[in-house]
């Protein structure tokens, strides 16, 4: 589903020269990114390279250290809290650590945005929950509490919750981590359905090569504190850049200083 002629209304997310990090220490910098309505963009990169941090910045949870982020045409960090909340209702976020409410059942978790933010009648709410849970393969789990679900099931419940308001853009942080290949493929299919049927734009952080190949319209690869590569998966796979090549061909990267720096590492651990 490629959009050929873009208008400004079709650009849902713009990042211009963005740096993100913690306490003035930039983890990613100089990020320029545009995400267009109706595409699935995967964010790739090694563990700890800053993908989740980037998502936090995009979704208004953590101001970038520098640069400009525009989500759905608005600069979130210039809005007051109420306006920001209104804007964020048009988005959905499935966190890496599911972030389900432990004291609520799955059904209550998924339906929470509906019950809090809409005036829909209860039967409709229940039906919407039922449909969304069926879509992520969790029919029959309505009455269970999150801690009694497996990790993969919790992730899927989180995705159902993130998508319950039919947001224009959904952010998923590693939705298929910890899923078996069959369920993971089912989840990929669900994401594609969201895109094709409901017209949702999706930004997915993932490490699963299969998933990347099936769902991405575009992939963005982070590394070395910046965007290392960006483009279609075919482009990236054909890349001659060593790190990009290694990622796609699963070559174990040389770990810096494997032997001989033990004392150094201990020292860092203590001062960290």
């Amino acid at each position, binding site marked *: 589903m490629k959009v050929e002629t873009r208008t400004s209304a079709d650009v849902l997310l713009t990042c211009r020269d963005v740096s993100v990090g913690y306490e003035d220490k930039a983890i990613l910098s100089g990020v320029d990114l545009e995400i267009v309505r109706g595409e699935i963009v995967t964010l790739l990169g090694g563990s700890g390279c800053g993908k989740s941090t980037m998502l936090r910045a995009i979704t208004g949870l953590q101001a970038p250290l520098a640069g400009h982020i525009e989500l759905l045409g608005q600069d979130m960090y210039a809005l007051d809290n109420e306006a920001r909340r209104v804007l964020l209702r048009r988005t959905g976020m499935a966190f890496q650590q599911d972030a389900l409410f432990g*004291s609520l059942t799955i059904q209550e978790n998924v339906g929470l945005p509906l019950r809090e933010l809409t005036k*829909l009648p209860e039967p*409709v*709410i229940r*039906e919407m929950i039922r449909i969304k849970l069926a879509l992520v393969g969790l029919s029959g789990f309505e*009455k269970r*509490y999150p801690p009694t679900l497996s990790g993969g099931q919790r992730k899927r419940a989180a995705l159902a919750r993130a998508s319950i308001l*039919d947001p224009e853009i959904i952010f998923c942080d590693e939705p298929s981590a910890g899923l078996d290949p069959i369920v993971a493929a089912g989840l990929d299919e669900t994401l594609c359905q969201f895109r094709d*049927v409901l017209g949702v734009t999706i930004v997915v952080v993932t490490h699963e090569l299969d998933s990347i190949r099936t769902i991405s319209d575009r992939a963005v690869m982070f590394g070395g504190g910046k965007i290392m590569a960006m483009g279609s998966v075919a482009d990236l796979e054909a890349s001659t850049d060593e790190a990009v090549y290694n990622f796609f061909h699963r070559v174990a990267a040389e770990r810096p200083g494997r032997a001989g720096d033990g004392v150094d590492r201990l020292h860092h651990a203590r001062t960290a």
Partner: protein
Amino acid sequence: MPVAHTTFDRKTRTATVRVAGDVSLTTAKEFYGHMRGVARRRDVRSVVLDFEKAGRVDSSGLAVVSLAARMMERGGKAFDLVHLGETHRAALDLLPRDAVAVADETDHPGFVRRVGMSILDYQDAGAAFLALLADTGRQLLYVITRKKRLPVGALTDQIEKMGVDAVGIVGLLGLLLGTTLAFQGIVLLQRFGAGVFVADMIGISMVREFGPMMTAIILTGRTGAAIAAELGTMKVRDELDALTTMGVSPTRFLLLPRLLALSIVQPALSLMSMFLGIGGGMIIAALVLHLPPDLFWDRIVARITFGDFLHGMGKSLIFAWIIGFTGSHLGMRASANSTSVGAATTRTVVVSVFFIIVVDAVAATISTIGAHP
């Protein structure tokens, strides 16, 4: 413009519902009301949902269509969708085929079963509590015989948290309690010209009753609740299980330091509050009765026996164990959802205070009857 409009054909008894515009979060409520109205009509045999003029159908719209299909089926009406666009078809494909709607009602157990279940619960809890006591005893033995040791620094840490940080509040309340008792006592005893006996009264009540009891109640709120909350949170986050899988006994690692610290802190704080209570009484007696403090103190020393003192200190040790064991037991039994931690915490306070007062009453009865048979 309304989201749906119905025409009715009397001959075929068919209601045709024409959907107009988007069916989304904002219009779904109206659409649902409309469909329910149609479903309730007795004269309608079959319903046709016409999508010719329909726009975007989002999940709330889908939910209404799915609900409508079920309502019609239940009412014995035929239900057809016509003029579906490509996007409508794709959207309707999202509906689960096999998943049956879950029944809303959970089965409520009957009265007898509820009583039975709660008895079993208590039995369960009782057994777990005894196991905890036994395990604590065993771990304590290991520590005493130096087969195992307490985590480094844990005991002093706990003493600091439970004791040092509570000195201010316990001290202040002890002092205030002493002054209050003095006022009450003076008013009463002066009528009989026996004002000087206020010293005896304050001494006895602070040492035997109020010192230990008040300290125990403050520590229940501060420390017992904290123990339950800490252990409960750890339980919920599987940290207790993590300890077990590492081969570390949670009882030794978490419980023992807390219990031992309480056993030191509670008597110590009680002692302090006894003295401050007496001090408070002394000040009031000096101000109101002009009773010289040294005379006051002489009466205290003459009146209070070592037995009274032991009675107070012994009780405060028992209170410490009540608080420690209740907090740990209820905290560790918190279940897998996060409200259970709050519940464990409040229950700890209620249960501890209850047993503290029961033990106190029993001790008072036994010692009084024992002394004056």
